[in-house]
């Protein structure tokens, strides 16, 4: 398995503010990697350095084997970028825009197929100005993938979506991942990271404070469990034993029984406060 993104000792400072204070990252080809972190943690700065938008102060960065600090057209044609907000090309139609952008790439996909893939086939003739927020975001993704990128960056792709639109968007991203596209995603939504990502990294105060699979992040799977029932709650390392004991006490069904381990959100909040 090859490495798509390799970062060692990355730092970036704006005036007095150390935005990124020494980050190491390895993102494997073909995986979906989520970067989590509060606003101002250095998440966007890191991603923008990887995308070739910003210069770094120090450290080694390799994206698809190239230093993004010196982006070439050839490299750009292998990387897709979906930015946070954009309101451009409002007067062009979806099809015109996707076709136009296809012209920039040496190995562009068929524009109509991409439009269909992002679920905009019925809106292809509409001007982008007339689309809803969620539909616009699909155009952004279409423009991000039109050049058949090996690596796709998605910056907070579902902010402002309603729950249904978000689910549909997740399916779209999962479809791309299944085709083998490496995806680097930043998000504020922990359920999104949990649903999409093979691995996540949590950035706080310019450093990576935890990295791993969503299900085991921060020792989540082995953390103490909380057993709750009507009339009480205990935190314990041996929840099964507690439940057995309760079964005996209630002589059968335990009223309102739940056994929980910390959610990704609990772990995340503990990590970024620490």
């Amino acid at each position, binding site marked *: 398995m090859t490495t798509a993104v390799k970062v060692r000792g990355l730092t970036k400072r704006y005036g007095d503010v150390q935005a990124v204070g020494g980050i190491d990252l390895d993102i494997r080809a073909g995986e979906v990697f989520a970067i989590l972190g509060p606003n101002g943690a250095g998440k966007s700065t890191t991603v923008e350095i990887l995308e070739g938008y910003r210069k770094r102060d120090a450290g080694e960065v390799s994206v698809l084997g190239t230093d993004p600090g010196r982006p070439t057209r050839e490299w750009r044609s292998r990387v897709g970028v979906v930015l946070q907000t*954009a309101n451009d090309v409002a007067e062009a139609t979806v099809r015109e825009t996707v076709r136009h952008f296809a012209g920039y790439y040496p190995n562009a996909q068929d524009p109509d197929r991409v439009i269909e893939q992002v679920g905009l086939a019925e809106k292809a003739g509409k*001007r982008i100005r007339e689309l809803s927020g969620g539909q616009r975001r699909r155009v952004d993704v279409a423009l991000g993938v039109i050049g058949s990128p090996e690596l796709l960056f998605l910056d907070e792709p579902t902010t402002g979506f309603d729950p249904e639109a978000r689910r549909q968007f997740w399916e779209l991203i999962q479809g791309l991942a299944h085709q083998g*596209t490496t995806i680097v995603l930043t998000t504020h939504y922990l359920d999104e990271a949990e649903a999409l990502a093979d691995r996540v990294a949590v950035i706080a105060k310019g450093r990576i404070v935890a990295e791993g699979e969503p299900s085991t992040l921060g020792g989540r799977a082995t953390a103490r469990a909380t057993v709750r029932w009507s009339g009480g709650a205990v935190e314990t390392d041996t929840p099964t034993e507690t439940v057995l004991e309760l079964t005996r006490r209630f002589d059968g069904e335990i009223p309102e029984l739940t056994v929980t381990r910390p959610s990704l959100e609990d772990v995340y909040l503990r990590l970024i406060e620490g």
Partner: protein
Amino acid sequence: MTQTIAPPAAPAAPAKLPSAFRLSLSRAAIETRMFFREKDAVIFTFSFPIILLVIFGSIFAAELEGTGLNVSQLYVAGLIGSATMTGFQNLGIGISMDRDDGTLKRLAGTPMPRTAYFAGKALNTLLVSSVQVAVLLAIGVAMFELELPSTVSSWLTFTWVFVLGVLGSSLLGIAVSSLPRSGKSASAVIAMPFVVLQFISGVFIPIDQLPEWLTRIASFFPLKWMCQGFRAVFLGDDGATLELAGSYELDRVALILGAWVIGGLVLCLTTFRWKGRRDG
């Protein structure tokens, strides 16, 4: 995901990047298409100089003493000058908006060569200015006794003044697009100097009626020289006596417009921002 699958449509052999020339034309086509879709902007862009010409030409129809020319002909020449400078305003505002609404950032993330963006804007400007000038000429001829030049050398002068003028003001427009803090403030920031320049460069007010210190300021900017060049074309030798210098100084016109093309290019290359101020 544990197994690696080939990326979609992976190239068998590395395909060639599309040429910068082809993409310049492609940018020009989409810019032009988008320009003509903003119907309200199109109507006002084209009707503004026409309405000014009709108003000024009708109010000041008097004959210019001892020349056999009338004031409205002077306005045609002046307004053609300002139509040639439309690129300053259109690009200054248009690029500020492109920077603000994410167009520039999105393009910077694609393999589009950056020159294609500027070439597309320049070609679009050349087209818009040409249409404006053609309409002004038609109205001048139809309503205000404007005579189209009859010699090849006059048309040559017209061509080089127009091309240098459009190029210089487009480059200047690209350079000033970095000044406004946001797309919203762009029209105010950029329209103001353009209106002022029109007043002091001999578009609305004949240049010989301006105080000397104002014409001296105007001499630093291209518009005065563009108008002077167009007066040489449309007023001919009869009008030369009205010039401050007693002649049209075509050599100086060429020199100063050429200097603005080079200066504008240097300004663009050194100051252009692909990112908005809020993007750091």
